[in-house]
């Protein structure tokens, strides 16, 4: 009898760490720059929103902090035929209101995004879906109109799964303020323009690192830094390079930075009448830029040069390609060969206050171009007004121009970058080449991952060495400031997700 009792104690001790996970404790306060407009996970798409929604909602797939694809609500997935993806769901997961996470919830959530009444801006990532099929409680099939190998990367960003009954019952306004998901946190309180308070979700299968996380919205960077140093907040995002020294010098706070998939580049309107119709001119414009000087002096080390438009974390990255070297003599020679020995002048547009140190970097680049005789007039524009100008680019009476853009590639895919800046179907690119279009289309419809990756690497090589369609610059870092008591590693996708922030 005595022995049995002892056995029971031993057994219960063994079971303890498995059965009862310690409830999270403590509180962190984050100061974030971007505004949060809605908690309806199916309507909008923006980086600030995509840093909040993963606290409350979950997707089928996700990105691990290092950028690799992982399963979240999906237990496994496979392509059963070229046009059918099958997802097996994790069992026993519940939403914070107690409803089960099942195949019907997945079907409802994706159909909600596709519903024209929702006017969803995520529609473009889901438009290849033709039909959703509930196979059983934990199996769902996505039928696509065409073979779509790009579906998984987007299902790691969008397509948050919500409980159907709740989302059918309430109106849009209620849903935008009262989210229900299966994420590590529940949203406790939200005062628009001020703060969001998250509390640990008792039903969650993934626990947050602390019990309570508060996000304060602070648009002005000097105020964010002051709030961090004075101890009013524990972590801030969007730290400008120029203020990083203040954060370091305070003694209580650290700078945390990581290369993000935000590639900065200068696009050209390549059309009749542009000096850069000639590939030698485009090459010269690239060789005349000293990228190292810009990343070191303007970006203060918080940027890394790229060869074309992808960074090492992205699918299809070609490690053999190097950034264009700084060679002004060669640039001058190429310009002379192309008949522009005296150079030429042109406008280059950049949006105001949108890209980290963008205007300063572009002014530096303009100075470097001036040394080989290229006179660039830097025009700083309001974003919406600049988009209007970009859209007029192919009109007859519009003089060819250049424009500086940056793109956050959270899908970590070559396809996303090529389709958005290089392909002629891109609304924002300035390069049209049938051969390159064919290569991009061919790669996109290649279902085998290995050979698709090879094809993207080959496209990158052709672009870098032969076509020179753009002026690639660098990937900027996402820079954060954190109190020394904070335990947090920055993510490869640059997102600051409250549920991942812990205390030492």
């Amino acid at each position, binding site marked *: 009898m005595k022995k049995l009792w002892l056995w029971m104690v031993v057994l219960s001790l063994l079971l303890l760490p498995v059965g009862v996970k310690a409830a999270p404790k403590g509180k962190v306060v984050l100061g974030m720059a971007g505004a949060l407009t809605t908690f309806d996970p199916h309507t*909008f798409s923006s980086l600030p929103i995509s840093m909040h929604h993963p606290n409350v909602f979950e997707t089928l797939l996700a990105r691990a902090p290092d950028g690799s694809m992982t399963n979240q609500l999906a237990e496994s997935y496979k392509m059963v035929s070229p046009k059918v993806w099958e997802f097996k769901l994790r069992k026993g997961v519940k939403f914070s209101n107690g409803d089960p996470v099942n195949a019907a919830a997945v079907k409802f959530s994706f159909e909600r995004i596709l519903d024209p009444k929702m006017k969803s801006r995520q529609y473009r990532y889901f438009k290849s879906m033709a039909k959703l099929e509930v196979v059983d409680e934990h199996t769902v099939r996505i039928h696509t109109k065409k073979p779509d190998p790009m579906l998984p990367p987007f299902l790691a960003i969008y397509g948050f799964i919500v409980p159907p009954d709740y989302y059918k019952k309430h109106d849009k306004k209620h849903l935008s303020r009262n989210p229900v998901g299966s994420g590590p946190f529940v949203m406790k309180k939200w005062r628009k323009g001020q703060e969001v308070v998250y509390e640990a979700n008792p039903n969650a299968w993934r626990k947050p690192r602390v019990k309570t996380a508060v996000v304060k919205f602070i648009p002005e960077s000097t105020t964010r830094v002051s709030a961090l140093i004075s101890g009013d907040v524990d972590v801030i995002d969007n730290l400008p390079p120029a203020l990083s020294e203040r954060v370091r010098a305070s003694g209580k706070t650290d700078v945390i930075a990581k290369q993000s998939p935000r590639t900065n580049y200068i696009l050209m309107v390549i059309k009749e009448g542009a000096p850069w119709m000639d590939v030698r001119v485009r090459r010269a414009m690239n060789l005349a830029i000293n990228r190292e000087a810009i990343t070191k002096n303007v970006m203060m080390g918080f940027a890394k040069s790229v060869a074309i438009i992808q960074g090492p974390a992205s699918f299809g990255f070609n490690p053999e390609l190097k950034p264009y070297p700084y060679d002004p003599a060669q640039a001058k020679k190429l310009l002379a060969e192309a008949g522009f020995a005296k150079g030429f002048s042109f406008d280059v547009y950049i949006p105001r206050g949108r890209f980290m140190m963008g205007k300063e970097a572009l002014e530096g680049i303009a100075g470097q171009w001036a040394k080989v005789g290229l006179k660039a007039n830097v025009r700083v524009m309001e974003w*919406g007004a600049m988009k209007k100008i970009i859209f007029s680019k192919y009109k007859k009476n519009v003089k060819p121009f250049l424009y500086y853009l940056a793109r956050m590639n959270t899908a970590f895919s070559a396809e996303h970058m090529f389709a958005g800046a290089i392909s002629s179907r891109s609304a924002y690119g300035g390069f049209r080449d049938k051969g390159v279009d064919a290569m991009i289309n061919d790669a996109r419809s290649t279902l085998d991952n290995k050979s698709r990756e090879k094809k993207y690497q080959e496209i990158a090589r052709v672009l870098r060495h032969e076509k020179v369609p753009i002026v690639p610059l660098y990937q900027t870092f996402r820079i954060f400031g954190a109190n020394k008591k904070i335990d947090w590693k920055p993510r490869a996708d640059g997102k600051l997700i409250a549920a991942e922030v812990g205390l030492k």
Partner: protein
Amino acid sequence: MAGYVVKRLIQAIVLLKCVMIIVFLLLHMTGDPVLVMLDTDATHEDIEHLRKLMGFDQPLHVQYGRFFSNALQGNFGESTEHGESAMGLVLEHFPATIEMAVGAFAFAVLIGIPFGCLAAFREGSTYDKGCVGITVLMQAVPDFWLAIMFIMFFSVTLGLLPSFGRGGWEHFIMPAFAASTYHLARLARLMRSQMLEVLRQDYITTARAKGLSEKIVLMVHALKNSSIPIVTVMGLDLGILLGGTVIIEVVFAWPGVGRLVVDSIANRDFPIVQAAVFLLASGFVIINLAVDLVYAYLDPRISYE
């Protein structure tokens, strides 16, 4: 008087209608809202798809007709970024704006006017010269710089006041004072010069000759008569503070209408901008009306008939 008020109210309604037409046209001239709504990975096909869903593909007069008939019923539409009633959002942010505007206005009036009066009473003294110097400085220093310096000194160095946000009085004191400095200095300078002019008038000499105490001469005869331009400027100040503390709101992360509107302009969220402009323009009209009525009280010679 009643006839005058009715006439002014009708004028105000016509004015507001004109304001709404101008805002509608200006917003549509600033560019295509659909372009701003989608990120730069959107294709032409994606853009056209959303344009149709949002109704921006229809002719401008159709869009205006729809907007205006809804606005008449008090419905300014749904915010394109927040997905809920635009006027509801503006009203939600309005208390914070009123709090800051009234606070800054109170600082300006309660500090600016006494300082200006005292400077005038002691014309040429060290106090007067100091007052003039400080007010020139206060008008010249940009408010965002002052705000940042306040935060560095009171929050970071001394740790006395919270660095940002809205809450109790301790949150309110720095932003309200920073927003008030320009108005405070302008009121003080105007008060001083008005007072000096009035003090040179014959009726002041007469009042003194009658043997009235200096206190009554200054407070009743001089102050009341020098107030008319001051009241005008005060009305303008309050109007400007209600609509234009955007920079202070951004620096202190103050959740007011100014910040909401600036974000909404950047996002081309037309319904919010229209609702906010309507509300702020109405406020301005009402303040102006009130100022005109105060004139009549201060100087009964001003006749409206």
